[in-house]
Structure formats: structure tokens, C-alpha cells
């Protein structure tokens, strides 16, 4: 059972990483326009710039 001593903290750490990522995405306003984001990805205006 000693394996738990480092596996459990690792699992928690991974979970915390996810939580931090969510809080970051929240702060940077990524949930302001959820429907729009789904549609903007279909636009091609970024292609010319990189071509």
C-alpha cells in the first residue's frame, strides 16, 4: 500500500492542473461567447496570412 503515498498526491496534482487550466480559461474570457467560438473556427481568413 506504500504505492498510495505517491500515487494519490500525483493524482491530486493532475486534478489541480486541470482546475488551474479551467480558472485560467475563465479569466481570459473564453466563455464569453461559446456559440461564436464554435463558428469562428470555420472561418478561413487566417489562412491567407500564413500562406
Amino acid at each position: 500500500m506504500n504505492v498510495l503515498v505517491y500515487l494519490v498526491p500525483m493524482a491530486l496534482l493532475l486534478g489541480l492542473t486541470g482546475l488551474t487550466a479551467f480558472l485560467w480559461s475563465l479569466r481570459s474570457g473564453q466563455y464569453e461567447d461559446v456559440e461564436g467560438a464554435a463558428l469562428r473556427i470555420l472561418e478561413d481568413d487566417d489562412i491567407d496570412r500564413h500562406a
Partner: protein
Amino acid sequence: MRESLDLSMFVKREGGLSHLDLAVEGIGCAGCIRKIEGGLKRIPGIVDARLNFTNRRLAVDWQADLLEASDVISALERIGYRAHPFEPERAESDEARYARWLLKCLAVAGFAAMNIMLLSVSVWSGGATDMTPETRDFFHWLSALIALPAAAYAGQPFFHGALRAIRARQLNMDVPISLGVLLALGMSVVETMSHAEHAYFDSAVMLLFFLLCGRYVDHAVRRKRKKVTAGATVYAGSISYSGALTMRVSAAGAGTLIDEVERLLARAVTSRSRYLRLADRAARLYAPVVHTAAALTAIGWLLAGASLHDSIIAAIAVLIITCPCALALAIPAVQVVASGALFRAGVILNAGDAVERLAEVDTVVFDKTGTLTLPQPHVDNAAAVDPDLIETAARLALSSHHPLAAAMAREVRDQIPYAGAVEEPGQGVRAVIDGVEARLGSPAFCGVAGAAGGSSESEPGTSLIAFAHGTRSAIFAVRQKLRGDAALVTKSLTGCGLDLHILSGDRPAAVAPVAARLGISQWRGALDPAQKIAAIEALQAQGRRVLMVGDGLNDAPALAAAHVSLSPISAAHIAQANADAVFLGDRLEPVRDALAIARRARALMQQNLWLAVIYNAIAVPIAVAGYVTPLIAAVAMSGSSILVTLNALRARRRSEDGRRVSATLGGADTPRLRSP
């Protein structure tokens, strides 16, 4: 030129940049984003345009010295979209911040609940396998390590609410919630220290998680009713067609229409804020019942000879298991789903409780002008006149500020006014075109009075504009057209048992034909704002629940006085501000859809409350009997929450199809018309 709106109150200025928020009509697909943003950004002076597709709002920034707000709106109109400025309420940023805080709490609670559940499931299954007591204790301590800080953070919305309530010597939902969470956590720590088998860390955090879900969606729909304070004359009095009229209204002193409206409003608004939402009514009942049940459980066990420890555990189990999730989650969920359905039907809610109040309506009162009819007058006989002549007349109309000229100007193809056009106030506009003087205005002004003769004033509600250019002349009949589907909508509203009225400020002679065409027998004309309120209050005194649909400055007090109110988006600002919801477009259909969706939503809310009652009827006796292990608590809580949320989602499925909406309104829900 379209009517020159006074938009200055909507525009925010900062360091040479102007910012305007617009609600845009007619956005349907991905292409619209590009058309609008790309089209606007090509205009010199516009710095940024960003469309929020989710709420159909457009934020535009431009250089203040290069453009005016009206230029932006007319540019949008050229691209093909009608836009209406709106004033994001000052409180909105505060509310957005609160919503974000709730979301953070929700994220923390969700993270903690998932990780603790991981440990809890191990402990529960460990009971059947070979988990040693040491490992179980280790898992309990780990759970405590996650649960305590998470609850301290994510529980704040409830702790604050409970403290506020206790300080005010009141009970609200937050009090039993906070009590339950704190007691469960405290007891679990004690139990863990004494190496006990059960700890309720997962129940406490999961409770917080579900409740925060509910709190978050509830916050999304519930917006505080705006208070109209004295001196709030910052509203542009009315959507006026000419700059001159706006000035006159703002300069007016006491005793004017707007003063009267303000005074009536203050009274009407206070009379309606007494409405108590379904959820609040249930919550009032909830807190005392839960506290009593928990206390009785503890006392009962003590009297029966159980130890203090066991009695308290049973009481805490009651506090936790009477999970208010159905109350705190299911009703807000129905509201969110319903307001989404309303949004798709072209109705934007101003007040969070509007859905409930809409569902109770049994009487609909319409204003005429701008509500049953289209807001702007149209040239009725355009087809009968030579197109060239119309084009010349319409181009000339561009130089006039008169509302009838605005109707004329909408017929124009070429948006270029004639040079040297002169407006004669009250008479018309004249210009020299191709070397010959052209006149547009009253028949007398144009010298074609004789030609007007027979048709003039024969049809009430029609105004005549004459146009003369050299030897050629024409008479245009300008009038307010009914909304295309008005007759259909009023018919189906009557069909499902609603009582329809028209209360108009217009002349009775102008109201009568409209009422006749729509089949509305109860109508009154020539009413001032106070009389409109009196008429609505008389209806309400008979026990009717009145929906007021109106758009004008003179409707604002009536909108506030009615049980619930709707305005078209073209309405005067003060009318919109006092309406519970605003509908988009040139059709009246959203009014019918709104009623159908609201009724469906209310039925679902009541269903959910019953589900909650049934759940508690089963769960509470188990808790009182002392059989609630953490496993049972977890299953019961998540099971009931998922059940009511899924039920709430039905508000969406049924209302997406327009035909089904009207079927719902006309059929299944009619018997519920007068449900409490």
C-alpha cells in the same frame, strides 16, 4: 437618411474612442460574423467590431472624430442587419463578476467532489474487500485535506448568504445549507479522528457542487428589477423623428407627458415588486421544515435512548439528505432552458421571473401603434405610382425630418439627397431638380390639393403626402401597416382562451378598423397614460393577470403596472426599460411563442417541485431512521439532481418547433390556464 436617433446616451467615450453596444437582428449563421465584423472594419474610422454570437450583441469601437453612432448603425443596415443600441446596465459588470466568482467556486467544488468521490468509492468498496483500517483512515484524512479548504472557498456564497440572513433575523435557504455542510464536515473530522467507518466529506462537497450549479444558472436568469428613481429623465423621452422634437421634450418642465409618465411609473413599479417567485415561496417553506425535522430527529433518538453521538449523526443526515437541489437547481434550470427557447423565438428577457409571470397570464392588452402595427409608417400605394416619380420624391424626402418623409425616404434606392433642398417646417420640402422646382409635403404646399380631394381622410389612420415636379404630381398614402401576422396571432391567442384588449392613445376612429380586422371586440382609444393604467388596474382588480404589450412612451407606466409586459425592440427606451421582455423583428408571433414557452416552463417547474417532494418523502424517513450511510446519501443526492435537471431540459425540446409551440398553447396547456 433614416430617422436621426439621439444615440449619445448609449455611446461610451474614452480617449478619442467611442464605444457602442448594439443588439443585432437577423443573425443566423456563421457567415454573419464575418459579414458584420469584416464589413464594419473596412470602414475607415472603425477600430474594432466584435460580435458576440451567443447573445447577438455587437461591440463597436471607433474614432470619435471620424464617425457618429448613427453612421455605424446605417453602415450595418447597408450590410443587411438592423441594429438597436442598448445600454448595458451599470450593474452588469458587477453581476458578471459575481457570476464568474460563482463559476470559480463551482470549479473548485467540482474538482474536490470528484477527487473525494475517488477516495470514497475506494473506501466503500474496501468494506467488501480487504482494506485495512489504516488505509481507510488515510483516505479519510486525504478527503478531509481536500474537502476542508474546498468547502471554505466554494461554500462562501452560501455562508455569506446565511450570515446576512441571520443578521437580519431571518431564515433563508442558505442557513440550512451552511449548517448542513459545516456540521457534516465537523462531524466527519471527529469521526475520522476516532477511526470511525463513515465520513461524510463527499456528501458535504457534492451538496455544495450541486447547489452551486443551481446558484450559477439561477444567477444567469435572475436580474434585479431596475428601480426607476425620480429625476431619471436621462431617458431620451421618446424615439423622435427629428432632432428638434427631442430638444423640446428635454427642455420641458413640470406637467409634461414625461413628468406624468415618471410619476405614474414610480407608483406602478413599487406595486409590482411584491411578486414572489415560485422558488422563493418554496424556499420559505423549506428552511423551517428542514430545521424542525433535523431537531426532532435528534430529540427523538435521544428520547429513545440513543447516544448523543448517534442522535447528532442522524440529525445531520437529515440536514444533508433533504438536499434542496430540486429547489435550488431544477427551477433555475427550467428558467435557463426556457429563456434559451424564448431567445430562439426572438424574445429577450429583462426580468428573471418574467417566465413565471408570463405563464399566469389570462388577459392580453395591446397598444396599437408600433405594437400591433409596424413601428414605422409605410407608403401604401407605392405600386400604383410611376417608379421614377417615387424615386425622385423619396430622394427629396431624404432632406426632411418629418416622420412621414422618413416613410417616404425608405422607398429610395439611391441614398443621395438633392443639393439645395429647403425644408419648410410644417409644410414640406422643396428643391430645384433638373431646373424645375419640386415640392414634397402637404397637398396644399404642393398645389395639388384638388387632386387629393376624394381620397383624403377617407381611410382613418392614413396620411397623404403630395409630390409635384413641374407638371407631374402624385399623392402618396402613408399609413401604419399591421404586423404581417397580427391577425393570425390574435386569432390563436383568442383560440386558447385568452382575453384580448386594445388600449390605444390614438383616435378611436383609427383604432376601430384595427380592432375589427383583428377581431378584438374590447378596445378603447384616446387614452392617456393614467387612463391606460386605470384600465389595467381595473382588469387586475377583477383578478385577471394582465400581459401588456406596448412600445410607446405613454405605455411605459402601463407596462410597469401590468402583471407582466412585452415590448418590441423598436420601442421607446423608457418602455423597453419597463418591459419584462423585449421581442425582435417585424412579426407579432414572438408574443404567442413567449406565452406558450412560459406555460410549458411553469408546468415543468411545478413537476420538478413535486419530484422534490416525492424524493424527500422517501429519503427523509430513511435519514430519520438512521440508515443513511455516505453511499446512500451520494446516490440519493446525485440521482435526484440529475432527474430534475433532465426534466428541466424538456422545456427546450418541445419549444424548438414553432408548430409544436402553438399546439402546446392551443391544446394541452389550456386547462392549466388559471393554475395558481
